[in-house]
């Protein structure tokens, strides 16, 4: 089935938030902190601006709690008394003219008495830098399996390594934006977002309103990748505060520079491995220490850290594992959700480390992985026994076959001997990704989906899941049409509007097809069940006709099928020990990157890329391939070119001119293949795939570069500058 909203997107008729006509709206803007940490001494409104024309909002205008509602209550909607990072929002302005607004924003000065900031998450903080607890540690997690110290002491081979990854900007093509207005006592906020009910909760908390006094409507979202998971909550409160004070609609749209400078980024990481092995390359002990840079507030760092930890040992079986993970405070804009949610960082580390192990043992890196990949009945680092029918070795072998791995390794040895200024290499990475919320997260979300049978015989799927390019509307249409045995044209997906749809959870964590899709199927079956009750046991051949008949027999009543999340049996997680079944299902992958490094410019070009993965069941081939190819290219950017340069803790290169994302010319076709071992609790057997493709590319590319130039590539992005340094290092 083709993407249901494809043509309106291709013709540009689909309206994003900045495209909405809004009669009498004011333009909103944000005055921000000029320094990374300090006490606010005052605000100076400059002369030469008629401030009476402006709506001005500060923290005193917040009717509820001055908090962006998330995990901890530490992040203010608007700074009050102190600032914790450069660009922190302090004052909001609105004016009918965008030009006047922009001019005025330059004439407000936030006066700060500076305090010592933390700008390097790798250094222990000094006393004057402590801002959270006793040690600036925002979250600490530990999981243990077996006896690591004993196993390390006994192991014939010990390999250590340290691996680092940089921040990354999501670069959704549509920048962040919200509009807000008040109608009949209800604050309505509409904009680009992944999680309408998160935004609703944030509005209720900060505006001191009940759930029926706020309404959140998602507009078509021009890319999210996690960047529109938590960030829109604060932005929505800003827009609402301005609209309430102005008593007029307000449009708050970031331009690209503001978006790059102030919004969340992928957490930078530093991961240390100590690994014990036998001489045949079998893993005996994995001791892993993970540190993430959390930024100035807690936001989602605890859960990003959790996923980072759970994936840190890789898709391998090992009896003795200890993983300790900390997210630490720095005075940077908070780092946030980004496709993969911590797992790409730790799997970069473990897959680079496997390469170092292979080199130390003088072993084929493919064979090292083959020997250690989890077999049916073996367990992950948290002790989750894997019995999913997936064959991880088959995934590896298929990728090697498609890439011609062994042959090319040989071929490139000869090529590199023959060429002084061009070097080729090929590298692989094995990885996995757990879909859905971690541990008991899905139980707490308690997701609900409704499917309504309408009087004209059509059906409407009601879920708070949003379309952001990943294909949710198409997948839900397909699933409902199949479950009801009716034409896709008879299925409509309701807008993600908290006034119309139940809370089916956030559009994150690769959970949409697998978990919410399953609920769509169940709600459809529930709807059919209701029809059956009234039709009697003769069964229904034409669902649409039966829906019309039902409405004729039951005028002005609602015909609703519902489904609520139920935990699959035998999935048990212990939050205290951090052990057990972390996810209902994992998807598995092996990726291969083939690169050429130019030793005159030290630029790396990806020549070929093979992506093989086992994902349960492919629901829509075009969409699934699109997810993999898009994820791979985004991750290749993280590996090679996308570097955030910092000044005072925030992104300095906040322009597309010098933040370099891959273009069509920079990447080859991504060769995708799927293997299928259906997951019985996912829609039609599907597992989540949105984030999986982010885990493999960076280590595969780094391993290929290491293979090409014969040096270690333990830090990404592998910019020409960095590579030059490594290659020339004696």
């Amino acid at each position, binding site marked *: 089935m*083709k*993407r249901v*909203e*494809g*043509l*309106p*997107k*291709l*013709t*540009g*008729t*689909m*309206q*994003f938030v*900045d*495209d909405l*006509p809004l009669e009498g709206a004011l333009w909103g803007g944000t005055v921000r902190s000029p320094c990374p940490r300090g006490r606010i001494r005052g605000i100076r409104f400059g002369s030469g601006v008629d401030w009476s024309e402006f709506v001005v909002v500060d923290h005193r205008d917040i009717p509820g709690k001055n908090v962006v509602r998330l995990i901890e209550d530490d992040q203010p909607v608007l700074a009050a008394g102190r600032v914790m990072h450069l660009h922190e929002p302090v004052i909001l302005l609105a004016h009918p003219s965008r030009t006047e607004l922009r001019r005025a924003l330059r004439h407000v000065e936030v006066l700060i008495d500076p305090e010592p900031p933390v700008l390097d998450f790798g250094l222990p903080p000094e006393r004057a830098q402590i801002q959270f607890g006793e040690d600036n540690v925002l979250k600490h997690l530990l999981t243990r399996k077996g006896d690591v110290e004993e196993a390390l002491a006994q192991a014939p081979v010990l390999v250590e390594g340290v691996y680092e990854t940089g921040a990354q900007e*999501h*670069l*959704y*093509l*549509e*920048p962040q934006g919200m509009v807000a207005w008040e109608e009949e006592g209800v604050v309505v906020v509409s904009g680009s977002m992944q999680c309408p009910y998160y935004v609703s909760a944030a509005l209720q908390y900060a505006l001191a309103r009940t759930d029926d006094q706020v309404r959140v409507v998602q507009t*078509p*979202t*021009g*890319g*999210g*990748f996690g960047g529109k998971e938590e960030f829109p909550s604060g932005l929505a409160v800003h827009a609402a505060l301005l609209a309430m004070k102005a008593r007029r609609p307000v449009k708050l749209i970031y*331009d*690209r*520079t503001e978006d790059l400078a102030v919004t969340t980024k992928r957490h930078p990481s530093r991961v240390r491995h100590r690994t014990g092995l036998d001489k045949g390359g079998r893993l005996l002990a994995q001791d892993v220490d993970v540190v993430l840079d959390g930024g100035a507030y807690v936001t989602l760092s605890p859960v990003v850290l959790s996923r980072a930890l759970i994936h840190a040992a890789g898709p391998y079986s090992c009896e003795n594992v200890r993983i300790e993970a900390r997210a630490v405070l720095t005075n940077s804009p908070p780092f946030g959700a980004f496709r993969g949610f911590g797992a790409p960082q730790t799997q970069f580390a473990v897959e680079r480390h496997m390469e170092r192990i292979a080199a130390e043992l003088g072993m084929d890196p493919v064979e090292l992985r083959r020997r250690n990949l989890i077999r049916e009945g073996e367990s992950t680092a948290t002790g989750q026994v894997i019995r999913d029918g997936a064959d991880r070795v088959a995934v590896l072998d298929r990728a090697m076959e498609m890439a011609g791995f062994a042959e090319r390794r040989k071929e490139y040895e000869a090529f590199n001997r023959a060429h002084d200024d061009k070097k080729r290499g090929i590298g692989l990475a094995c990885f996995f990704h757990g879909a859905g919320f971690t541990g008991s997260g899905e139980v707490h979300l308690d997701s609900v989906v409704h499917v309504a049978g309408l009087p004209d015989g059509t059906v409407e799927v009601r879920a708070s899941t949003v379309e*952001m*390019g*990943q*294909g949710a509307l198409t997948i839900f249409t397909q699933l409902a049409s199949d479950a009801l045995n009716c034409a896709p044209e008879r299925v409509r997906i309701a807008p993600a509007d908290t006034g119309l749809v139940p809370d089916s959870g956030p559009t994150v964590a690769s959970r949409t097809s697998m978990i919410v899709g399953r609920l769509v199927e169940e709600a459809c079956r529930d709807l059919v069940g209701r029809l059956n009750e009234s039709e009697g046991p003769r069964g229904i051949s034409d669902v649409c006709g039966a829906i019309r008949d039902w409405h004729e027999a039951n005028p002005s009543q609602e015909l609703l099928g519902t489904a609520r999340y139920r935990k699959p049996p035998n999935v048990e997680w212990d939050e205290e020990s951090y052990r057990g079944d972390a996810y209902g299902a994992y998807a598995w992958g092996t990726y291969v990157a083939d690169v050429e490094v130019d030793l005159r410019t030290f630029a790396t070009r990806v020549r070929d890329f093979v992506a093989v993965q086992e994902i349960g069941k492919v629901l829509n081939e*075009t*969409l699934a*391939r*699109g997810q*993999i*190819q*898009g*994820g*791979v*290219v*985004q991750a290749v950017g993280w590996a090679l070119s996308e570097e955030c340069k910092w000044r005072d803790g925030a992104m300095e290169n906040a*322009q*597309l*001119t010098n933040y370099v*994302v891959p*273009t*069509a*010319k*920079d*990447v080859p*076709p*991504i060769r995708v293949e799927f293997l299928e071992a259906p997951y019985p609790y996912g829609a039609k057997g599907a597992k989540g795939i949105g984030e999986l493709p982010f885990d493999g590319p960076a280590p595969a590319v780094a391993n290929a570069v290491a293979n090409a130039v014969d040096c270690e590539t333990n830090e990404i992005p592998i910019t020409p500058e960095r590579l030059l340094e490594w290659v020339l290092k004696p």
Partner: protein
Amino acid sequence: MIHVDFTLNGDDATVAVEPSERLLDTLRDRLGLTGTKEGCGEGECGACTVLIDGLPANACLVPTYQVRGRAVETIESVPASELGALHEKGATQCGACTPGVVMTALWIRRNADVLSTHPPRDLMAGNLCRCTGYDGIIEGLEAWVQEGQGEAGGDGGAP
């Protein structure tokens, strides 16, 4: 304010604009043609690509007065019925880069000879896409061009 006469999607148009106004803002704010998107405002991403006298240009970098007497084509001039090949191949995901991608692709389709000297990936390098990884776009472009050549052969005129 200055007056600018030009051709917009085949029709005569007159607008009164600020001297420094960007074509992108004229199209979106004054003429209500919001199909052209702003992705970066500095000519890097190509989301605002339009055709001026048949050539692709970033509308965020063009002062409106410069289109005086020229022909501007925007995404609004491209009918959905023409876009089946791009739709089929998964050339759009989130849709934010898409109108710009389609306009560049339209230029390539009309000037398919450039493909004998430049690979499609080079020609599309001015349009950033963060969703597709470009395979859907490139495959869609190639299918669309092929379709166009079939038509051109059939009725002797390029669309």
